[in-house]
């Protein structure tokens, strides 16, 4: 949302010279607002009356368990939103891909090969999403909604609606979620990788151009559809990977895990983090902070004993409040950076 408002001020009179300095340099960061809000939320629970329960390694680990899969998926969703697209099926890919791995494993393939094939299948899901979107020019909202239902059904068929213990053992299991903090490492790795791709590679420029002005991008020779399909594939890849890592950590491939809740949290993290829903601009690091913020709120409210029924109400209000603050700081940014 934060990024939509500028369109209204497009006809602003010619801008004064940009100022430089530490303050404006900080303001220039798109991520500033979400970082401040996240720090505020952290401080609130950390210094509040439940601080002693909040400030423990175990509790930090619980927070990490919330945000890591959201952040991994949000790394892809941010890039898709920047391209002007969205993937509503990512949460179902998260649920489905571990069972794809099980299917290969049950055919007698060994674990590493099953894993590689499952990851390839997850990229195949993104490929199908992207091709339906670009070749048939069907909106990604509809395309991936359909894909989401399809994958949900496939998950139940494949799993018989029953959870399965992951067959991973040893180092492979440790790397893919078994070690206490491995999921955090994955999340940070993927976030940094995608932020670098966004800020420092041609792909990032093309993604922003594809979402910001597809006509202009195509006019300059950028293969807009190819950029979009690649981003759909990345998103599904991350969703599948998050599914495996997260469910290996839990110790159970669960057909009721993930789904639309997982997808909504990832999209919310991306949008709260400062990525425009209409495409053209965004940040991947912001999505990480968006995910951390949502996790802190969720965890903090659990600790402070917010009624379970009231929980989603509070989350909803908190999301909107965070967004408002984000928009406000973004408008400050524009005001003082012109």
């Amino acid at each position: 949302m934060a990024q939509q408002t500028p369109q209204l001020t497009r006809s602003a009179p010619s801008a004064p010279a940009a100022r430089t300095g530490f303050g404006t340099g900080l303001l220039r960061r798109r991520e500033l607002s979400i970082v401040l809000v996240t720090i505020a939320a952290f401080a609130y629970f950390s210094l509040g009356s439940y601080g002693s329960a909040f400030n423990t390694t175990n509790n930090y680990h619980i927070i990490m368990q919330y945000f890591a899969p959201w952040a991994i998926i949000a790394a892809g969703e941010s890039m898709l939103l920047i391209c002007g697209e969205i993937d509503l099926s990512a949460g179902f890919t998260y649920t489905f891909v571990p069972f794809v791995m099980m299917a290969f494993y049950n055919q007698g393939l060994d674990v590493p090969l099953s894993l590689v094939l499952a990851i390839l299948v997850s990229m195949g899901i993104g490929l199908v999403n992207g091709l339906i979107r670009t070749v048939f020019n069907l909106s990604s909202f509809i395309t991936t909604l359909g894909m989401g239902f399809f994958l949900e059904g496939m998950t139940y068929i494949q799993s018989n609606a029953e959870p399965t213990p992951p067959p991973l053992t040893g180092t492979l299991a440790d790397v893919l979620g078994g070690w206490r903090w491995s999921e955090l490492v994955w999340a940070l790795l993927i976030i940094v990788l995608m932020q670098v791709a966004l800020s420092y590679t041609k792909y990032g420029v093309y993604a922003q151009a594809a979402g910001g002005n597809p006509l202009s991008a195509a006019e300059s020779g950028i293969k807009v559809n190819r950029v979009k399909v690649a981003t759909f594939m990345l998103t599904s890849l991350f969703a599948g990977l998050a599914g495996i890592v997260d469910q290996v950590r839990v110790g159970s491939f669960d057909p009721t895990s993930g789904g639309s809740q997982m997808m909504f949290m990832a999209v919310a993290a991306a949008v709260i983090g400062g990525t425009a829903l209409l495409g053209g601009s965004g940040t991947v690091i912001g999505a990480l902070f968006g995910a951390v913020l949502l996790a802190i709120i969720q965890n903090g409210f659990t600790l402070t004993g917010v009624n379970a029924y009231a929980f989603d109400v509070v989350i909803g209000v908190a999301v909107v409040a965070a967004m408002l603050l984000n928009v406000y700081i973004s408008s400050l940014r524009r005001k003082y950076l012109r």
Partner: protein
Amino acid sequence: MSEEETDTPGADVPHQAAAPDENGAGTESGPGASGPGAEALRVEGISKRFGPVTALRDINLHVRAGEVLGLLGDNGAGKSTLIKIITGFHRPDSGRIVLGGEEVSLRSVAHARSLGVETVYQDLALVDELPVYLNFFLNKELTAGPFLRHGAMRRRAVDALAEVGINIPSVSAEVRALSGGQRQAIAVARAVNTAAKVLLLDEPLAAMGAREGGQILRLIDRLRQRGDLAIILIAHNYSQVMDVCDRVNLLQHGEITFDRPTAETSVAELLELVHAEYRMA
């Protein structure tokens, strides 16, 4: 590779601009301060039909380096069809296109661009969300390995914009923060910064105030002074065209009905021709 391309025009401008100046003044008494140079584009006997509709009939048109040709005409006169043929988007049913003395068959927009034909369209040129310098280098980014050279692109964008006399607060500003005139100027500067020989400006003054329009006209005039660029200006506003063009062509019902140096015609005469067309209709 793109580094070489972007550097060359800048380095070459002084002597390139000077040479045609002197030659032109000696041999021809052109209307502009600098006389036009070699013929950059010639279109001969171009016709185009879309089903039963004849869009263009036996079009002849030419423009020289260092010359600004105004292409005037009402909506539906065939201007955009003609532009799309010159830019390689449409293929003509008959006729020839000669670029820099060589007959060419334009296969695509990319092909025409590789031969030095650049077009600036009204409003779909820039990506609002990207900073000026990334727009300037869109799809021609400077890289070191897989990584963008942000600093180098910023510096070169600053130089290239300064060279054509465009002032903007910062090349790091997002394009949406700029005025319509600044955006148009950046689009023009970007087109020129590729080794363009023929520049088509599609309604560059549309939806622009008088002051901003004046800035664009001065930019066009400076590009003319360079002497190495042939410019075709497609426009509605006849008086602005008269200010900046060396010659005008009037396109009516798919035919060029008028071709004269601006010094030998007037807004009144052009309007009279167009009004005559209405009376006939």
